[in-house]
């Protein structure tokens, strides 16, 4: 099974430098070879009825954070907003 490292890296938003590519490729190939050895299974995937997940209502939670608190870890802030590169051309 040949893995297209460059394509996977693009999907994962990772940069693999050219000098790292070969090492990465062989490590990945080794790991894929290990995980490939799975038996054939004919079963169907079904949901686990014994643990029904009770989802929360879509409402405001009772924890209150201030904007200040939540922005304190932001890399770049201006006028109370997160600064990011242009997203729309």
């Amino acid at each position, binding site marked *: 099974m040949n893995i297209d490292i460059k394509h996977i890296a693009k999907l994962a938003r*990772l940069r693999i430098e050219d000098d790292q590519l070969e090492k990465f490729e062989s490590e990945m190939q080794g790991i894929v070879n290990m*995980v490939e050895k799975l038996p054939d299974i004919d079963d169907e995937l079904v949901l686990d009825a014994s643990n029904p997940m*009770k989802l929360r209502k879509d409402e405001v939670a009772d924890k209150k954070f201030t904007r200040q608190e939540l922005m304190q870890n*932001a890399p770049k802030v201006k006028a109370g907003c997160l600064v990011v590169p242009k997203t729309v051309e």
Partner: protein
Amino acid sequence: MLKNKEISSTELTKSVFDRIKAVEGKVDAYLTLNEENAMAQAADIDSKLDAGEELSPLAGIPVGIKDNITTKGLRTTCASRMLENYVPPFNATAMEKVLDSGAVITGKLNMDEFAMGSSTENSYYKPTKNPFDTDRIPGGSSGGSAAAVAAGEAVVTLGSDTGGSIRQPASYCGVVGLKPTYGAVSRYGLVAFASSLDQIGPLGKCVKDVAMVQSLIVGHDKLDATSAYREYPNYESQLKTDLKGLKIGLPKEYFGEGIDPFVKQSVLNAVKEMEKQGAVVKEISLPSTDYALSSYYIISSAEASSNLARYDGVRYGFRAEQFDGLTDMYERTRSEGFGDEVKRRIMLGTFVLSSGFYDAYYKKAKLLQRRIQSEFAQQFEDIDVIAAPTTPSTAFKIGENTGDPLKMYATDICTVTVNIAGLPAMSIPCAYDNNGLPVGLQLIGNRFTEQTLLNTAYAYENIVGGFKMPEL
């Protein structure tokens, strides 16, 4: 938990910090220390005790926290460059419970980056050393948590376990570690690695301490949709040393070629001791064990690749300094912010979930997971607990396995199946090899049978007269 005026929290906390000052240079268990706050917390607890207040058994006890559990106001890095300066605005639910009990927080403990690793060598900051032999690894990913207990740098610690990350370091460092049943402890605030496998759990020098902390951190949490709706016992108060009639299963697949003969013999000897006390031993088989490692790496990497997609340099954490446009910012941030092992797992996860490969890998691994779960369930109809080695060998040397990811992964072979099956499991020391290195005995139970595990461990601890900590 000697708060009967034998020692004050202030004295105990100070002695722990004195110990940290004395040995941290050799052990490197901590990433962030919390001394000032800890002493203040201790003083607060002492005045409450002096006033005659009834407090939790954990009140005033110095506790260390693995650095992937969020602590409000205290830096939480997951041992990654990605979160080097991240200060959470909230506490993990398990943290809230520990704080409510009045515990004193010593600091944040070193780990493999984002919990991916088996030796704590994948920490962005530094490796942690095994207190039994500082040329050796303490295990991972909760290496700091196990080492701190063994070195006396905390009384108890919290770690997390996704593929063995509490049990394996507990085994290498000769301490007691418990991975609860999936769903027993809330994952809210545990920085996500593999959401269907992760659990927070306690580590300590003795079974009683671990039992006590476990009771404090369990419970349903509406902030974690995967947490179980259940009531839990006071584990410590129900501990007993009677092994009569306990049915122990020995799965032949866990005693195969890859396991060191001394480890094998030590585990079998420990089980023999339990047999002398009335336990009944039976050989069993778990045929799907062969595929457990593969299905673990597929499932955990797939979930990790999804969970780590949030680290994009936008709202928090590391952001690359130079970039040209949004996509470039993402790529550079993630490439500079993550270490090699994390990138490997993200790549593997992305691959198994990608179009054309999903059926062959991820879907198959999930089907296999169900088969593994039902194999265990079937065995637990006739037995109470499974005994096996925790790791195939004793602690290896720093740098010994870093060149070969597959060799590193193979050290997890005895532990990963348990996470896949969602079962509770413990590791306790059962022997020491020629080099004085601890061997871990793993006990695995059916879902929500932590009391049985703790009792079995407690009984064994009683037989051997306690577990020894290393001289540093």
